[in-house]
C-alpha cells in the first residue's frame, strides 16, 4: 500500500468531540474537511475556513433590491407616467418606502439563498466522498473527517487517525 495513488483518507469518529479533537490535532493540513449529521460549532474554523462573505452578499442583495424598487417607482411616477393630483409631490417617499422595504428583504433573501447554494457548490449530485465505503448521511453514519495524504504515506496517516480515535478509516475513491 506504500505506492497508493489515492490522495485522501476518511475516518469515522464516535461523536463530535472526538471529531473536533482529531481535527484540532491535524489542523493546518490543507484540504481537510469533515462531515457531520448536524452543524458542529467551531469545526469549520478548525479546518481552516475563513469568515464567510455570505452576510455581505445578503447586505448587498438587500440594498440592491431596495434601490431597484425605489428607482423603478421613481421612474414610473416622475418620467414614465407623472400625474399631477392637486399639486401633490410626485415623490411620495413615505408610501414608497414600504415597497422599497419589501424589495430589500426579497433581494437579501434571494442573495442569501442562492449565494448559499453557489458558495457550497450545490447542486452537485455526486462527490467522491459519497463513494467512500461506509459513508452515508443517513443518521448513524457517524462523524467523518477527511484528511488528504499530503506528504504522508497512507499507512502513516491511517495509524495517526486510528491513534486520534478514528474507529474506521477508509480511502476516498478517486
Amino acid at each position, binding site marked *: 500500500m506504500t505506492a497508493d495513488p489515492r490522495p485522501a483518507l476518511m475516518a469515522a469518529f464516535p*461523536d*463530535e468531540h472526538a471529531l473536533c479533537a482529531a481535527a484540532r490535532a491535524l489542523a493546518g493540513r490543507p484540504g481537510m*474537511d*469533515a*462531515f*457531520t*449529521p*448536524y*452543524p*458542529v460549532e467551531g*469545526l*469549520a*474554523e478548525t*479546518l481552516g*475556513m475563513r469568515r*464567510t462573505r*455570505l*452576510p455581505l452578499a*445578503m447586505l448587498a442583495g*438587500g440594498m440592491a433590491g431596495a434601490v431597484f424598487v425605489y428607482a*423603478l*417607482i421613481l421612474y*414610473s*411616477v416622475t418620467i*414614465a*407616467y407623472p400625474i399631477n393630483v392637486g399639486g401633490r409631490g410626485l415623490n*411620495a417617499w413615505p*408610501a*414608497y418606502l*414600504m*415597497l422599497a*422595504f*419589501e*424589495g430589500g*428583504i*426579497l433581494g*437579501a*433573501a*434571494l442573495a*442569501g*439563498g442562492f*449565494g*448559499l*447554494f453557489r*458558495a*457550497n457548490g*450545490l*447542486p*452537485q*449530485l*455526486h*462527490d467522491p*466522498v*459519497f463513494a467512500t465505503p461506509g459513508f*452515508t*448521511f*443517513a*443518521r*448513524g*453514519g457517524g462523524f467523518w473527517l477527511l484528511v488528504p495524504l499530503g506528504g504522508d504515506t497512507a499507512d502513516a496517516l491511517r495509524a495517526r487517525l486510528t491513534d486520534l480515535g478514528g474507529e474506521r478509516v477508509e480511502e476516498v475513491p478517486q
Partner: protein
Amino acid sequence: MADIPERPPVMRGHPGTREISGRIASIVLKGQMPRFFWLAFLAAFLLVLVLFTTVAWLITQGVGTYGINIPVAWGTMLSNFVWWVGIGHAGTLISAVLLLFRQDWRASVNRFAEAMTLFAVAMAALFPILHLGRPWFFYWLLPLPNTHMHWPQWRSPLVWDFAAIATYGTVSLLFWYIGLVPDLAVLRDRAKNRAAQLFYGILALGWRGSAFHWARFDAVYYLLAVLATPLVVSVHSIVSLDFTYGMAPGYHSTIFPPYFVAGALYSGFAMVLTIAIPLRRLFRVEDLITKRHIDNGAKIMIAAGLIVAYGYAAEFFFAWYSGNPAERMMAWQRLVGPYAPFFWVMLACNVGVLQLLWFRRVRLWMPALFVISLLINLGMWLERYVIVVTGPSTGFLPAAWGTQSLQWVDFGVFFGTLGAFFALMFLFLRILPAITIFEVGELADERREA
C-alpha cells in the same frame, strides 16, 4: 389528570440520533399511513373539488354571487384573506423568532409550522385575486408597462399588499427549503427504492454535511430568520393598512397594525395547536412534540389574545372618544346591529374561552385544548368578518346603509380552501419529514451529554 409535571421537558426519554432519524424518516419512507389518514385526505380532496366548482361559478357569474354589493363591497374574500395570512404568521414566528431567541423547543415543531405558513399564504393569495372580479387581470398589479402605459398606483396599500405577500411567500419558501435540504439528504441515504432515491437525491442537491457547508448554512439560516422577523410584522401591518387607508368608520384607526399582528399570531398559534395535537398522537411522536410545546403554544396564545382583547377595547374607546357620530353608530351597531351575533360569538371565543388557558390543567389536557384552539380559530375568523363588513355597512350616510349576506359561494370558497390547505398538509406529511431531523438529533445529543 392526577399528576401534572411541574414543567414538561422538551423531549421525553433519551432517544439517540440514529433512532430519531429512523423514526422520522420511516414515517415518510415506509409510507404506511394509518387508514384514517387517507380517509381524511379524501375528505379534504372532496373539499378541493368544491373549491374548484365554487371558484368556477364565482368567475363565470361575478362577485355578486357571494353577497357583496354597495355599500359593503368587501366580504368574506377579504376576511378569509386576512385569516389565512394570519395563520401563516405563527409558522414564521416559530421558525424565525424562536430561532433567534435560541428556544430549543422550536426544533420539533418548526418544519410543519413552516409548511403551514406556505400553504396558508398560498390559500390567502387566492382571495384578493378572486375578489378582483376579473381575476385574469391580476397581473396588472405588477409593474409591467404595456401599450397603455399604465403603472400600478404605488401609493395604494393594495399594491403594497401584493408586494408584501409575494415577498413573504418567496422568503418563506426559501427558508423552508434551505432547512429541508439536510433532511432530504437523510431520506436520500435511507431510501430503499430507486424512485425515492432519485426524488430525494435530486431535491437534496448533493448535500453531504460538510463542515464548510454547515458553517455557511448556519450563517444564512440565521440571517434569513433575522429578515423574516421584520417581514412578518410588515406583512400583517400592510394587511391592516388596506383597511386603515379607507375612510369607512371602523377602518380608519391607528391601533390596526399592532392589533392585526397580534391577531395573526393568536389565530396562527391556534392553528398550530389544531395541527400539532392530532399529529403528535397519530404519528406517535409524543416524546418529540411534548406537552411543553403545547403548553408554550397555549401561553403565547394568552399573550397574543390579551393584546387582541385590548384592541377590541381600544376600538370601542376611540369610537366613543372621537366624538364622531358615524364612528359611534358603527360601534353601537356592532353590539346590537345585524352582525351582533357574530360579534358576541367572536367575543365569547376570543376573550371568554381564552381565559381557560390560564389554568395549567387545561393547557395540558389535550382534548380541551384542541377544542379551545378550534373555537379560537372560529373566533378569529368572525373577528375579521366583523371588521370587514360592519364598517362599510353603517357608513357616514345612513341612507346608504346595507349589509352583506353570506351565500353558499362564501362557504364553498372558504371550506374549499380549508380542504386544499389540509390536502396539502397531508401530502406534505406523506412526502417530507414533518419534524426537523437534524435539529432534533442535535438536541438529543446535547441532552444525552448533559
